[in-house]
């Protein structure tokens, strides 16, 4: 399954996913008009048509859609964007465009390698010593014990504060906030958005707001604001019956993708969970 060719039929755009990305990156399409949840849904439907879970496609999709989402989050908060991650929005977009391009170039490079490999399948050669080759010893020159001490000391050095890890597209999954808000709405018929997200980082607040818009589009909540910058009040629209939402809401799809669940690598690992609902 080729994610870039994913066929989309949205209100604002119809065509392959990579064209959408191109238009967005060239600012010929306003992300505010793009329903990201619908893209996720289209992907999930395509995924469901297949018998097995295509993890590679999921990985590619997640990186592309999370880039879109980050762009959208920044776009929705233009005046706050500068503070979002200490980057100007243009710089952020450019960085993302660059990263997408880089990833796509690497995908192309890996396709070239694969092709090369299949072409080289008939080339057999010996790996390791020849059966009747002279047996060799490669004696080691005398070594300094101080190098051992230095090696161990280096391993005991605290890792530097500066790391590239935060450069990963890193923000909490929208689904986390969808669930959180639904849980709140099961207990109370309305809540104050600002109070609910107080103490969260800017990026988390941005994603929480996206979740809120998603709930509104799903017809689950009503949003009211007395005046610009006044607190946003969220109220339950339908009486949720016990386990969840009645009526139009379909069961939530959930896809969590990591790379084979290795332990102990939270820094590398991006496990992103999405909850996609019908719009």
């Amino acid at each position, binding site marked *: 399954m080729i994610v870039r060719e994913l066929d989309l039929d949205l209100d604002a755009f119809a065509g392959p996913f990579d064209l959408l990305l191109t238009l967005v990156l060239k600012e010929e399409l306003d992300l505010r008009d793009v329903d990201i949840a619908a893209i996720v849904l289209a992907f999930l439907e395509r995924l469901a048509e297949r018998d097995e879970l295509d993890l590679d496609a999921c990985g590619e999709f997640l990186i592309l859609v*999370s880039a879109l989402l980050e762009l959208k989050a920044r776009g929705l908060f233009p005046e706050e964007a500068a503070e979002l991650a200490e980057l100007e929005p243009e710089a952020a977009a450019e960085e993302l465009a660059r990263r997408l391009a880089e990833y796509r170039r*690497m995908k192309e*490079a890996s396709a070239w390698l694969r092709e090369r490999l299949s072409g080289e399948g*008939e*080339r057999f050669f*010996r*790996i390791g010593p020849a059966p009747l080759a002279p047996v060799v010893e490669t004696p080691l020159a005398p070594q300094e014990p101080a190098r051992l001490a230095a090696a161990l000391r280096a391993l005991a050095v605290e890792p*530097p504060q500066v790391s*590239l890890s935060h450069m990963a597209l890193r923000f909490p999954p929208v689904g986390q906030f969808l669930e959180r808000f639904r849980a709140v709405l099961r207990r109370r018929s309305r809540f104050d958005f600002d109070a609910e997200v107080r103490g969260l980082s800017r990026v988390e607040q941005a994603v929480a707001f996206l979740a809120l818009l998603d709930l509104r589009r799903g017809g689950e909540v009503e949003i009211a604001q007395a005046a610009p910058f006044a607190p946003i009040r969220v109220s339950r629209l339908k009486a949720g019956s016990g386990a969840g939402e009645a009526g139009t809401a379909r069961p939530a799809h959930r896809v969590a993708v990591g790379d084979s669940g290795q332990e102990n690598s939270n820094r590398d690992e*991006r496990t992103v969970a999405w909850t996609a609902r019908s719009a």
Partner: protein
Amino acid sequence: MDRPLRLIAANPLDQLARTLEALLVVASAPLSTKELAEAAADDPERVEAALGLVGERYREGRSGIVLEHVAGGWAFRAAREAADACARLFERPAQRNLSQAALETLAIVAYLGPCSRPDIARIRGVAAESAVANLLERGLIAEAGRDDGAGGAVRYRTTPLFERVFGLESLSQLPRLDDLGADAEQIRERLHAVAEKRTA
């Protein structure tokens, strides 16, 4: 048919060519012209010329042994016509069925290496641990120091075996990645510049 062989026999380089054959049949990795010249105690120009003779003798269709220029050196391999027979007896070098994750990781290391697991994860967007372990085990990548000298994340580079498996004379044979025209160093520099900006 046998004319070139008679030529070899009569050629003053013939003995040197035989020495090269001997070196190549016992070597465990491709040998550069320089290594061959040092071992044969002869000069590189003559070695180049003798390699021409060896290549003429050991080529597809003529011999079951084929001389190839790969991974920065010269090596013997089996003729392609014997691939089926070889496949019955031997594992394909570094089993060819590399996963997509492994291939992408390999591409990143080949183009941007040396680079660390976090670097790879950042570009691929998913954890690189198992793909890296897999490639290490196959001998296609190897450790190449750590970021920021000691204590940082371990970096990886591709190995000569990588070039050999993929039939490359060197990494420079990898195709240029078309757009941006950015070479590896430029990409790295830009990444680091951005990282600094972000943490400034």
